[in-house]
């Protein structure tokens, strides 16, 4: 039986999830609070879960320390906002910020429940089979590094007993070559769905830091959700002003260009990426485009619409356009798309994102259809 603390632990995790759900809007609108840690794990700061007590405010308290240094020399090493000393000589309960680790699935589940997101139904026939190797069985051949000692000795013991050379008063078990057992892989066929998300963003002068921050946060949560829905997921990034290029995630959120905006350039590159790398019969494809709604000319917009109609929409599960409000943007592109596709189009989802607080609603608009 498991130790009862596992129940306390489960209880704690439940409370944590409740807290995350409660504060989801805050986490989302404040962007950077949840830190990805690789391994599909995230660190979520959890300031308010500890039991409240009467305690001293830390700043005014100060403390005592040991070591070299002149008067006025800082004791906290790092410059800037100082780590307040714990200041309690006898006690280990300093003010450590509580951080909780959560997996992609847990976090996505909370997002899903809070926004009432339907599970995505992958395009039917595009399920592809893949083989997965799991070391769950035992074989008689293999490399030494996979030798299963317990099984090897068990085998040797069996053999010795069967052949009558085992002596209980001198219980020596010596495996011979044929006793060796190795961990070996079982190959299983798993059905899996693959998806690709193609983010396109306008990085022309009118898109400021705040707008990019919104896109960054929004893409974080969209990725999170899609990751929980698909086993394999590719993410590609395209930035554009008057020309478009594919970039790394890092660059995507950092770049700031000036100059004009030709949205069609991004759509062309998007089309190119789909055609070369992602067969729509095998992939679930999600193009997202974010801009402030400015496009260079009506002609270019026309070109965009035809690219969408002829190439991008047929290949994609859905096409999402998020218009981030900016002081300079006219918001014309949203109007143009809306005039053509309306709000109830099967594959085109349009969303206006006014500010950080609107991110969550916008995510719901994008993912609420379950495609």
């Amino acid at each position: 039986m498991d130790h009862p603390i596992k129940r306390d632990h489960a209880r704690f995790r439940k409370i944590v999830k409740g807290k995350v759900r409660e504060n989801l809007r805050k986490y989302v609108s404040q962007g950077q609070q949840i830190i990805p840690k690789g391994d599909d794990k995230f660190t979520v700061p959890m300031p308010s879960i500890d039991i409240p007590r009467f305690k001293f405010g830390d700043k005014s308290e100060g403390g005592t320390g040991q070591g070299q240094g002149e008067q006025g020399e800082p004791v906290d090493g790092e410059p800037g906002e100082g780590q307040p000393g714990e200041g309690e000589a006898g006690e280990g309960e300093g003010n450590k910020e509580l951080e909780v680790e959560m997996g992609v699935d847990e976090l996505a589940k909370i997002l899903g429940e809070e926004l009432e997101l339907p599970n995505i139904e992958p395009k039917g026939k595009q399920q592809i089979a893949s083989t997965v190797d799991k070391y769950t069985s035992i074989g008689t051949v293999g490399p030494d590094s996979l030798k299963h000692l317990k099984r090897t000795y068990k085998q040797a013991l069996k053999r010795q007993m069967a052949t009558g050379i085992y002596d209980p008063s001198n219980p020596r078990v010596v495996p011979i070559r044929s006793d060796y057992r190795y961990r070996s892989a079982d190959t299983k066929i798993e059905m899996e769905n693959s998806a690709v998300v193609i983010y396109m963003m306008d990085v022309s002068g009118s898109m400021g830091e705040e707008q990019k921050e919104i896109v960054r946060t929004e893409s974080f949560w969209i990725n999170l959700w899609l990751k929980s829905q698909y086993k394999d997921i590719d993410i590609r990034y395209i930035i554009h002003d008057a020309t478009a290029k594919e970039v790394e995630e890092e660059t995507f959120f950092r770049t700031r260009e000036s100059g004009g905006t030709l949205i069609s350039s991004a759509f062309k590159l998007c089309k190119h990426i789909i055609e070369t790398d992602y067969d729509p019969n095998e992939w679930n494809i999600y193009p997202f485009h974010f801009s402030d709604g400015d496009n260079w000319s009506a002609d270019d917009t026309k070109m965009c619409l035809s690219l969408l109609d002829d190439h991008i929409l047929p290949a994609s599960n859905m096409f999402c356009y998020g218009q981030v409000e900016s002081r300079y943007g006219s918001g014309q592109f949203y109007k143009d798309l809306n005039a053509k596709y309306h709000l109830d189009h099967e594959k085109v989802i349009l969303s206006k994102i006014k500010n950080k607080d609107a991110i969550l609603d916008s995510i719901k608009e994008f993912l609420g259809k379950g495609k």
Partner: protein
Amino acid sequence: MLRAKPISGDLLELQREIQGYADEFGLDYFPQVFEMCDYDTINILAAQGGFPIRYPHWKFGMDYDQLSKGYRFGIQKIYEMVINSDPCYAYLLEVNNWLDQKLVMAHVYGHNDFFKNNMWFSNTNRKMMDVMANHGTKIRRYMEKYGQEKVESFIDKALSIENLLDINHLFETNEVLESRRRKEELAKIEGENDGYMNDDRSAALKSFMRGQEKIKSNDIGPEEEDVAEKNVGRGERDIMRFLIQNAPIEEWQADILGCIREEAYYFLPQRITKIMNEGWASYWHSTIMTTRAMNSNEFIDFADKHAGVMVMSKQNINPYKIGIELFRDIEFRWNTGRFGKDYNECESLEEKENWNRNLGLGREKIFEIRKSHNDISFIDEFLTPEFCNRQQLFTYKFNPRSSRMEIDTRDFQAIKQKLLTQLTNFGQPLIQVEDANFMNRKELLLKHVHQGVDLDMQFASQTMSNIFAIWKRPVNLSTQYEDKEVVFHFDGKEMKQLNK
């Protein structure tokens, strides 16, 4: 369920060896039991304060979560864990090497001796493992009866005030008698009706009822009754006891509050002797290892481990370091006779520097100190300017201009004062009951006895909200905040400042 195993073979042999040295040095300890466990088990035990069985509560799960993470990332590793009980239980970590185990054993004998002999521990219940397990059973039953959510939420509230204790109660004779009586009753009840819910009114609850009677009868003479009625609990610092006796709570709630209070008082002596206790144990592991138990090939590893434990920090005092150094300093002073009138009044620096009366009283002195002092009196009496200087102690404070903590001074008096302030009331704010019928409206007025440091008001407000849930009438707190006398008022919804 419990995955710690008693040690055997070589380790048992090692224990015998170490115990031999402990005897040789005159350590006086409870029978010592070592158990071996893997890191997961030791994390579980640590999360539960060292005890194998506690009541169900998420905070143990939270601590376990943090500890396991800390271990996985290698930021922290629990070295030794020892429980104040008779016999004294201590846990060894499976993955530790031979030298570690040796060092831990020697260290543990130090703790064991301290638990047994330090007078602040004299009234702690040495059968606390059983008591903790009983609390667990009892609270689980309440959960079955009243629902997990409801009971857990009440425990949350009780834990919110578990640091509001009165140190003097460690020596209160009534309390001692009561705890003995309580123990007997507990044993009796457990024996009589094993497993029956209805007569579970044991331990703390009976003290709660006796408490109710006491207010009515014993303590108060007839002519004082009016005044007493008005001043119920005034000056009381044992807030949990005050609430058990005076708050409109149900029996099961009083019982739970009693359990949590009993556990808090059990841990209190350890909180007020941290420096001494760790210092004493470190003094002995160091002495036993360097003069007896260590092989010459273990020397480097020992030095490394020992240095790791003794590491100094600019941000706080390492109790192991200050403790061991202070014990050594005292030993040296009493060996050489550097104390008393003659020495203190000696004006010649040179003579003082080379002072040696060859008294050899050092060992005797530190044994005596470990019996009668706690951290406050230890620092107050034995900290010297020379010691502060040698140990490079300083105080630091917050500089609002650079918004950093900066070294303030290396002045002896200032350091001593700061240390004593930090240790006062085991580092917790001093809160006492001022009026149980505040404004004549049965509101509770608590007073924070301000000693130079403001409370964290956000925490205070949440804490007051929890006390409100127990007291069921508005809760007030008088304190000093940003150099002004203020009274905060919590009415069940929000906290306001009362005009004064």
